[in-house]
């Protein structure tokens, strides 16, 4: 649509609703708060499952702390998909010295295989590359990626 949607139109109200659910926006007028809060929480749980599928070692490394760690990071932060969400979370945890060894191994392998600037979708690296995350070291040559040294 080329025209700007009118305030109160369905387009605007759908956008307000999505913002309230995934981006920390205010509850739109007229919606019952409790069901909307339940929906917000359910969306975060579903997202946590998707990220854990893309980043199984990260989730396993955090163990019982995985749900709370993910929910604390993701609340109010819209998704960029499970791959990028997990990547951003792993980098944030690494910066905070809170990335478990398994997560560091997984991140090192990904960093060796893909170029990811945090803004656009990751792209496979063409040339040989190393991925280093703390003590974890991964190498990529001709598209084959190996963890050379695990973190401890």
């Amino acid at each position, binding site marked *: *649509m080329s025209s700007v*949607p009118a305030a109160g*139109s*369905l*387009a*605007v*109200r*759908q*956008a*307000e*609703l*999505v*913002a309230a*659910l*995934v*981006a920390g926006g205010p509850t739109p*007028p*007229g*919606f*019952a708060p*409790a*069901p*909307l809060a*339940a*929906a917000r*929480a*359910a*969306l975060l749980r*579903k*997202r946590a*499952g*998707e990220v854990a599928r893309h980043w199984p070692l990260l989730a396993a490394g955090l163990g019982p702390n995985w749900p709370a760690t993910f929910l604390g990071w993701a609340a109010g932060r*819209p*998704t960029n998909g499970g791959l990028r969400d997990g990547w951003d979370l792993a980098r944030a945890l690494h910066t905070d010295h809170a990335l478990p060894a398994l997560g560091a191994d997984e991140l090192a392998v990904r960093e060796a295989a893909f170029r990811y600037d945090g803004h656009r979708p990751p792209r496979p690296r063409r040339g040989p590359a190393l991925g280093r995350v703390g003590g974890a070291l991964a190498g990529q040559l001709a598209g084959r990626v190996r963890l050379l040294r695990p973190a401890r």
Partner: protein
Amino acid sequence: MTGPHGVGIGWRPEIAGFVAELPGLRFVEVIAEAVSTAGPPPDALVQLRERGVAVVPHGVRLSLGGTEPVQPARVAHLAAVAELLAAPLVSEHIAFVRAGGLEAGHLLPLPRTREAVDVVCANVARAQAELPVPIALEPIAALFDWPDDELDEAAFLSEILTRTDALLLLDVANVHANARNRGTDPLTLLDRLPLDRVAYLHVAGGAEQGGFYHDTHTHPVCAPVLELLAELCARRRPPAVLLERDGHYPPAAELRAELDAVATAAGLPTVT
């Protein structure tokens, strides 16, 4: 190619081995967005097709209820998956999944208004113009309603089906979830839906949490859903019913028992 028949299961890579060993299986569903059209389909799906198992692409990201016209590339992908798998039909949801540049990450409900009916019908028509096969529309499970509904659910759905001439994919677990969370009677809705338009049914597991019933697809199918399935099939038995499971996969014996329970409740032959 005929439509889906009998008891089916949602094909997921994690349970491909289990699905391949179901002797009586004639019908599966795949998540359309998970199938690449750049090459041949996964071997496991090819083998199912060679056995004569119908594969129905099930879209989850078209956003037919979004106010922006459905994205042509997404419709083209769904159409290509249908061609690739020689599907008898495709299915999608009466819902929206993105707005204002944000992805919700899940199916969100529409206000049951005439404006929303118009939006859905226009998008379904755009999709139908490009799809090689019929489309079945699935009403979703919603944890909340919009404040300004003009129509009840039966009227809202019936209007969309009549105007689009689409088939109905009725999710029995969603009917249970919505009735439970709204405090309404699910049988009242069943009695007012055009059951002759049902291409197939969904059933899935869920769980009570925080005072709400959540349609999780990661728990066993609960007794009220099986009872509702039996009630529906006693009124008019659709040709097929499909079990959706999307995680926390149980041991094979449990999943087989669940398929058998679905078959028994629906009055269809077992596939295990």
